[in-house]
């Protein structure tokens, strides 16, 4: 009898569930882009959670001395990278060991940090929050501070419909904001959508790019998310072996994540240690500065990428087509100034 009741319940639930409205999502995949890697099922996109995540991203409460926020090293005007320092500038003026990367199109990324040490976007923020050279705080203390500091209790309530603040909610909210950082409105995108045209120089740069660069910096995200040794000489001071630190495998020595080239105009300096100040230096490295080693990317083994000065200029012209000014100057990505006046 009880079994019959249970089965009847399940049938009714199944029928009624079809009528219940589904959660509205605001995550749009740009035309002709692949499906994101991030699984939204456990963290459905919601505008109030994005807003909370944005407030957390810009909050210095996440650091031990309440002076450093995520945005300290990830400025919206640098496509959420950091242009002032080759290596991350952290708490108490400490300097880290890697260049702060751009935060853009992260929903498509399957690992995080230059060496892929972090396996999920939700867990990414834990690294800088707890790193002694970055924010040097604990998640327990962050949660305690958020409980007693305006406007967070109100923002958590608005996002989660109750006032509970947990580590899980903090991290998922920061993920929500980072997921919202989609850049797909560059000139390149406009050309691909037949709404604009490259100049002759940009067109030649695009041709050269596809010939020499696109195997790693694959369209439309301009990365294939792999780890490669791109022939940089080891920095004597940093002694950074890259991916090998995570996998402990010799085959991964000196390999670093292939970064996206979107908004590259704004994300200088370049490389994992910020050693190149401009694109000219980057292209000179690929054409004449490759350091040979056993793990070097196959594409670079024959003396790198031979490029004439004119070709380097044309490739640069194309790379500038990846700038998305709408994204860079989007006020929705900026510091939520209105919270300063929150009562």
């Amino acid at each position, binding site marked *: 009898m*009880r079994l019959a*009741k*249970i089965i009847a*319940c*399940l049938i*009714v*639930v199944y029928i*009624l*569930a079809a*009528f*219940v*409205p589904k959660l509205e999502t605001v995550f749009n995949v740009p035309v002709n882009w692949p499906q994101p890697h991030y*699984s939204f099922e*456990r*963290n459905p996109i919601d505008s109030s959670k994005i807003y909370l995540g944005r407030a957390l991203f810009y909050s210095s409460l996440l650091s031990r001395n309440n002076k450093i926020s995520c945005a300290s090293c990830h400025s919206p005007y640098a496509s959420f990278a950091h242009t002032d320092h080759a290596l991350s500038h952290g708490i108490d003026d400490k300097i880290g060991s890697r260049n702060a990367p751009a935060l853009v199109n992260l929903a498509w990324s399957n690992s995080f940090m230059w060496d892929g*040490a*972090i*396996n*999920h*976007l*939700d*867990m990414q923020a*834990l*690294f800088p*929050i*707890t*790193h002694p050279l970055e924010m040097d705080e*604990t*998640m*327990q203390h962050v*949660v305690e501070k958020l409980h007693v500091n305006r406007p967070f209790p109100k923002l958590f309530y608005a996002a989660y419909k109750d006032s509970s603040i*947990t*580590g*899980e*909610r903090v*991290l*998922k909210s920061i*993920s929500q904001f980072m997921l919202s950082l989609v850049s797909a409105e560059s000139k390149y995108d406009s050309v691909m959508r037949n709404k604009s045209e490259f100049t002759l120089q940009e067109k030649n740069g695009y041709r050269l790019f596809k010939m020499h660069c696109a195997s790693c910096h694959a369209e439309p995200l301009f990365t294939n998310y792999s780890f490669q040794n791109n022939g940089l000489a080891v920095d004597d001071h940093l002694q950074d072996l890259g991916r090998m630190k*995570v996998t*402990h495998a010799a085959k991964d020595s000196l390999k670093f994540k292939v970064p996206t080239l979107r908004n590259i105009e704004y994300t200088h300096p370049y490389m994992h240690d910020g050693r190149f100040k401009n694109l000219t230096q980057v292209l000179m490295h690929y054409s004449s500065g490759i350091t040979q080693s056993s793990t070097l990317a196959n594409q670079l083994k024959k003396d790198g990428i031979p490029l004439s000065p004119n070709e380097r200029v044309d490739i640069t012209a194309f790379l500038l087509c990846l700038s998305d000014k709408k994204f860079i100057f989007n006020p929705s990505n900026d510091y939520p100034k209105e919270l300063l006046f929150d009562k």
Partner: protein
Amino acid sequence: MKRILSLILAQIIVYCSNTFAQSSSQLELEIIPIAGAHELSSEKCFSSAGDSICIDVMKMYLTGFQLLNKGVTVWSEMQSFHLIDLNKPESFALKIKIPNQLIADELVFNLGIDSITSVSGVFGADLDPTKGMYWTWQSGYINVKIEGTYKSKEGVIKSFIYHLGGYQQIENALQTLKFKIDQLNSLKFYFDVQKLITSEIVKQQPNIMSPGKEAVALSLRTKSCFNLAK
């Protein structure tokens, strides 16, 4: 209309939950931390080969509880993640809901977090990163965290830190434990810390804080620490 349907649906779910709830009973599991033949004292110190070892922190994840009958799984706990903490005695008593009139002759559980959970992002409750059991510099849960101090006969004092974890292939430190059982009301397990932390181990390698073969080797020893009380 949609609002009304949502309310009806909620009522039915509550009714169904109650119906299910009535058909479940409770398995009580108690973990008793011991050091050799003695219960771990309130100071959490014990002797090993004449040296003294004191435990400051001892936390571990017991997960993936299953009941088997004649080798076949008859029940698995959903969201089965339990953090036990030496400094929170209440965490050593687990009350797990199981279906009524279940027949089982074996209990299986894991010591640590499985690899799928390890790559699936952030979770709450006992898996919340605020519990201090998630590595922040490289993704992955710490399955077992034991920290303390060692004092040799000669008076040398040394601290030790064991953060055992790792979920990838050969670095997978998760341990699965199986125990034959003859009833499903309450089960008591002894966790003998002396089988894991000895003066010899502390002297040889006082710190293991990242995934790797050392963490796997020490994790293997944790299996022998658990014994079902007769």
